[in-house]
């Protein structure tokens, strides 16, 4: 698997520029693209979230608000004006900083969270060869970088000098640090079977064998543990206790407004997208077409649906489905209490993950003996 940066370096080598200058110039392209992906993702996701909510809850507003008088038959495109109004509102709103807040840290916190999400995107593949930088330790790198955001959350909660924010950040820190363990253990299953931390290798293995979720009963369980844990890691309902609006007003985001709040928003949706893509890549066959789920009896001609260009569609549709499921959760479930959340993580998921790890090793050993 080659990365985007390498391809771009090759592409622009005709300019005859010095390699290091070229690198610096070329790096802007993926960086801007990532930023664009994040922005577009947040805008679209907000629209979709609103529509999902509207359909599930019989809400009227998101069905009606049009754009320049365009309502698009009310049902599907209605409400598109709201997203744009939202974006303008967020960017032009007054930035309120409480008088007794720690102003430096309050400014720093959104950017730490944003950088965490941004750095994670570097290793997230959108399709074959469509990754900014192809790390050999891809899975591990993504886990490491997604753990950076929690510091931003803690700082945001503390620096606001608001008791509700402090509660929110305490809960967030406990929750995110805890849920990293089941996430890591579930990903370890894939790493154990494939023998590589590289996301490209993991997909390649799935292309040669079968989708990882169908590899064994234990990976099947692991997928659900992973998915529920990432819902918790991204602070979505039913695990949104750090920003539980009925208890903590808005948790660690209470004192933020305007552009800083928009950055939180951007990062939250970016994180949703990252975890959905990782779940799709590791468990759902990444950019492979669903025709080859278990890789048996498929006519070769169907393989035209695979490949780097069509792969991006497959991957994104899988990821978007997972994002949709997250939204579905949000509009269906009540919120867990903080101790129930911890109970779920430490006393349910982690034992299950460890058992999974043990059994999948045995499965591999036996499978190695019998099915080779």
């Amino acid at each position, binding site marked *: 698997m080659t*990365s985007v*940066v*390498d391809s771009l*370096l090759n592409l622009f080598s005709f300019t005859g520029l*010095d*390699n*290091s200058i070229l*690198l*610096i110039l070329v790096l802007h392209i993926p960086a801007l693209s990532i930023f664009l992906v994040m922005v577009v993702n947040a805008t679209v996701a907000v629209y979709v979230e609103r529509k999902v909510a509207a359909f599930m809850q019989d809400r009227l507003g998101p069905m009606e608000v049009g754009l320049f008088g365009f309502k698009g038959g009310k049902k599907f495109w209605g409400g598109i004006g709201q997203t744009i109004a939202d974006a303008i509102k967020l960017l032009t709103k007054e930035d309120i900083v409480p008088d007794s807040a*720690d102003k*430096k*840290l309050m400014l*720093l916190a959104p950017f*730490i969270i944003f950088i965490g999400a941004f750095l994670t995107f570097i290793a997230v593949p959108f399709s074959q060869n469509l990754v900014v*930088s*192809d*790390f*050999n*330790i891809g899975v*591990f*790198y993504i*886990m*490491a*970088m997604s*753990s*950076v955001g*929690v*510091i931003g959350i*803690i*700082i945001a909660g*503390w*620096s606001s*000098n608001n008791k509700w924010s*402090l509660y929110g950040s*305490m809960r967030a*820190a406990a929750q995110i*640090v805890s849920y*990293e363990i089941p996430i890591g253990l579930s990903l370890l299953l894939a790493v154990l079977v494939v023998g590589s*931390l*590289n996301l490209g290798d993991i997909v390649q293995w799935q292309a040669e064998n079968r989708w990882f979720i169908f590899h064994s009963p234990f990976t099947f369980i692991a997928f659900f543990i992973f998915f529920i844990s990432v819902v918790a890691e991204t602070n979505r309902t039913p695990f949104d206790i750090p920003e539980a609006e009925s208890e903590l007003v808005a948790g660690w985001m209470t004192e933020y407004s305007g552009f800083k709040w928009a950055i939180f928003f951007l990062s939250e949706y970016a994180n949703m997208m990252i975890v959905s893509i990782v779940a799709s890549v590791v468990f759902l066959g990444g950019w492979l077409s669903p025709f080859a789920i278990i890789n048996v009896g498929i006519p070769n001609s169907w393989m035209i649906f695979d490949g780097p260009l069509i792969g991006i569609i497959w991957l994104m549709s899988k990821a978007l489905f997972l994002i949709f499921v997250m939204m579905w959760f949000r509009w269906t479930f009540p919120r867990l209490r903080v101790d129930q959340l911890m109970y779920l993580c430490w006393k349910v998921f982690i034992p299950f993950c460890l058992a999974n790890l043990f059994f999948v090793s045995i499965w591999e050993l036996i499978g190695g003996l019998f099915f080779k």
Partner: protein
Amino acid sequence: MSIPIPELSVVLFFGICGLIIASALLVVTSPNLVHSAVSLLFTFFGVAAVYIFLYADFIAATQVIIYVGGILVLIIFGVMLTNKIENARIDSKTNNQIPGIVFTLSMLAMQFYIILNTNWKIAESEPRDTTVKEIGNLLLGKYLLPFEVISILLLASLIGAAMLSRRKTER
């Protein structure tokens, strides 16, 4: 990913070193404990970047996941929840300044002496493909015993921490 030519990497290296030193200085000089803890974030990141220069990508990621995601969170947590930290200002008046300066300077001189007199082997290191496999093999092969001992130590401290925090409710 390999860094193409030395010039850029040198610039980057010194930039990162500057970041490490500056943020480390902030850690010790900042009067606000939380500010110190946040500065530590940049120090850890810088150190992770230095690991990447050494082709130790796995160690770099481990540095981020353990120090930034785990230990720093713990530190900030502890500092934040310490009572009335908002008003606490660290007393940065130093005692025994002269002996301290003398000692530090002598240490510095010694280090410089060693650095200048060591016969550094300068060789083109070849870019490694991946270090994870070797680390794994070494940990579960040659260094299995220390690895297990460390894990038992960690388990013991885990149980100890759980015991300590439980006692309060069963008083």
